[in-house]
């Protein structure tokens, strides 16, 4: 079984999508000769040329607007925002234009575009290059929000996003780029809006996103030695959320812990928690639903402070243990 990195998996998805469909093109800053700030598009310029691998000036609103305009006239653009933080400079085009256009036009426009967004902390890039902003977009009707945690999901979800006829915000994690895993060579898609039970267990349902999925798996290994078995669910798509597997898992375990890197207040954990509370799983809860998330603060530069600003394996272990042992 072939193992490649998350970054290679993304590149392979882009390459295969462009080969298959000439309407697909890439647009972003330094994605050509430079290969993208994180190397995702390296080599694609040589294969597809500058008309389809479009280097832009430092103009994020322009990149997003280019995606909207090209999509509504029949193309299937994939935009890259160099660091997901910079998406703030493109918000008007994504939120006011791309997300609403179909609805405002009475359902008569189609907007098949993807915005790729490398996010997350852990690289010492400090507060303006390390944020996790996915939940802002979950709050916007008209968008879909995808957040893969493994190389396999990265390729399948990116190919699905490119085939999708709606705007997709595609959140990648910088720390995941080098992680390796099994990825088939052929094209395949993973349906948007489908979660995945990453690990089965009986004691606690852990709903984790992005880099918190491998961290939760690590935590599960440690806890397994103590006889605590975590069930880990990766929603993979935050919007639309596949609620059923989460609800079923909580019915089985009676306890739920939501883990994400984004700051806790107003984060996606609140949404997951509410989904559980509103569902039939409520009656099965043996403990309060808990959220383990980033501290309510900008990401600090200092290595130690940065480490402690977001959940780590030991935090997940500790919180999961408390929940299972009835501390709450």
């Amino acid at each position, binding site marked *: 079984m072939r193992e490649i990195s998350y970054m290679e998996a993304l590149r392979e998805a882009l390459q295969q999508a462009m080969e298959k469909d000439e309407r697909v*093109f890439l*647009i972003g800053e330094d994605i050509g000769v430079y290969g993208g700030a994180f190397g995702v598009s390296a080599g694609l310029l040589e294969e597809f040329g500058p*008309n*389809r691998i*479009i280097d*832009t*000036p430092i*103009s994020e*609103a*322009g990149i*997003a*607007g*280019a*995606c*909207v*305009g*090209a*999509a*509504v*006239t*029949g*193309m299937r*653009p994939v935009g890259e925002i160099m660091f997901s933080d910079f998406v703030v400079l493109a918000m*008007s*085009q994504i939120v*006011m*234009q791309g997300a609403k*256009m*179909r*609805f*405002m*036009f*009475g*359902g*008569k*426009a*189609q*907007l*098949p575009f993807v915005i790729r967004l490398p996010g997350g902390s852990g690289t010492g890039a400090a507060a303006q290059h390390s944020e996790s902003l996915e939940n802002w977009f979950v709050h916007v*009707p*008209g968008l*879909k929000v995808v957040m893969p945690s493994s190389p396999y999901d990265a390729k399948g979800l990116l190919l699905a996003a490119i085939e999708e*006829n*709606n705007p997709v915000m595609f959140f990648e994690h910088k720390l995941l780029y080098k992680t390796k895993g099994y990825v088939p060579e052929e094209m395949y898609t993973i349906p948007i809006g489908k979660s995945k039970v990453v690990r089965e267990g009986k004691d606690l349902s852990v709903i984790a996103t992005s880099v918190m999925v491998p961290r939760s798996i690590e935590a599960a290994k440690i806890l397994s030695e103590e006889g605590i078995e975590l069930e880990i669910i990766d929603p993979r798509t935050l919007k639309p959320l596949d609620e059923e597997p989460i609800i079923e898992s909580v019915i089985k375990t009676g306890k739920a812990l939501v883990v994400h890197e984004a700051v806790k207040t107003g984060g996606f954990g609140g949404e997951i928690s509410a989904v559980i509370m509103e569902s039939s799983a409520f009656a099965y809860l043996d403990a309060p639903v808990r959220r383990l998330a980033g501290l309510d603060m900008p990401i600090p530069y200092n290595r130690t402070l940065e480490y402690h600003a977001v959940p780590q394996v030991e935090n997940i272990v500790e919180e999961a243990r408390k929940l299972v042992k009835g501390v709450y």
Partner: protein
Amino acid sequence: MPKAKKKDQLISGEIEKSKAEDLLYKMVLTRTFEENAEEMFALGKVHGTGHLSIGQEAIAAGAGPALNRDDYLLNTHRGHGHFIVWGGDLNRMMAEFLGKETGYCRGRGGSMHIADVESNNLGAQGIVAGNLPISVGVGLSIKLRKTDQVLLALFGDGAANEGAFHESLNMAGIWNLPVIYLCENNQYAMSLAFSREFRIEQISDRARAYGIKGLTIDGMDVIAVHKAVREAAERARKGNGPTLIEAITYRYKGHSKSDRQLYRTREEVKQWMKKDPIKRFAKLLDVDDKTMKEMEKKAKEKIQEAVAFAEESPEPEISSIMEGIYA
């Protein structure tokens, strides 16, 4: 646009006479549509808002016919006239205005978002300069599909001071995109007068900053607008990139229905009304008062038909409230 008959006389060397007379009618139609809209606001018949282009009709009349049927339009919030000239159906426009299911956007968009993707009208725009970054994408799409289409991207003087203007015109410039940027400088960004918005005298001066052609024209003159847009379209189709056209014009009415117009004098409005684009074009075409009266009467009838259609049209079903958000 229908092919001109050979015997047609060219008005000022620019527009065939038969076509010009139809354009004059479209200008009258636009004004009648909007006067009617204003009246409906006053009578409380319209739930939302809308923006009137009365006084600015020459730009729509000159620009649309200078383009081909398969070209694209990115309109503004003050864009009824542009869509009427583009071929917009009055009944569906009026129905949209009244929020009816039969409207262009099924009553979901209103006057500010009227669009008809089928006819390449990519929509009016609620956000000042919001359509400018989109113009880059449409231009790129044309280039990648290798068609000889062009895009007419409209905006006002206010939009020229948004950051989006800078990003978009620069990108269109470096990539040589087939876009005609047509700025309708109507002297006010809502209440802020041109002299308080800009230190430069002409918005078209900014074209130099993007290495593209820029020109300022009389936006009250249909012929001048037609010539500028026609030439810009020719340049774009030849692969010579975008043009920034600044058309000097004036809106007679307030920004929107709530505007008390405290920022300008009645005298100023009167002075501009002397340059009225409809009267001016009628004079150029030698259309006498009697013919004008007939045209106005015909326009009124058409608009009344549209109002009747809109009023009789059904409201959207509440059960359909969530439709059209996702494909």
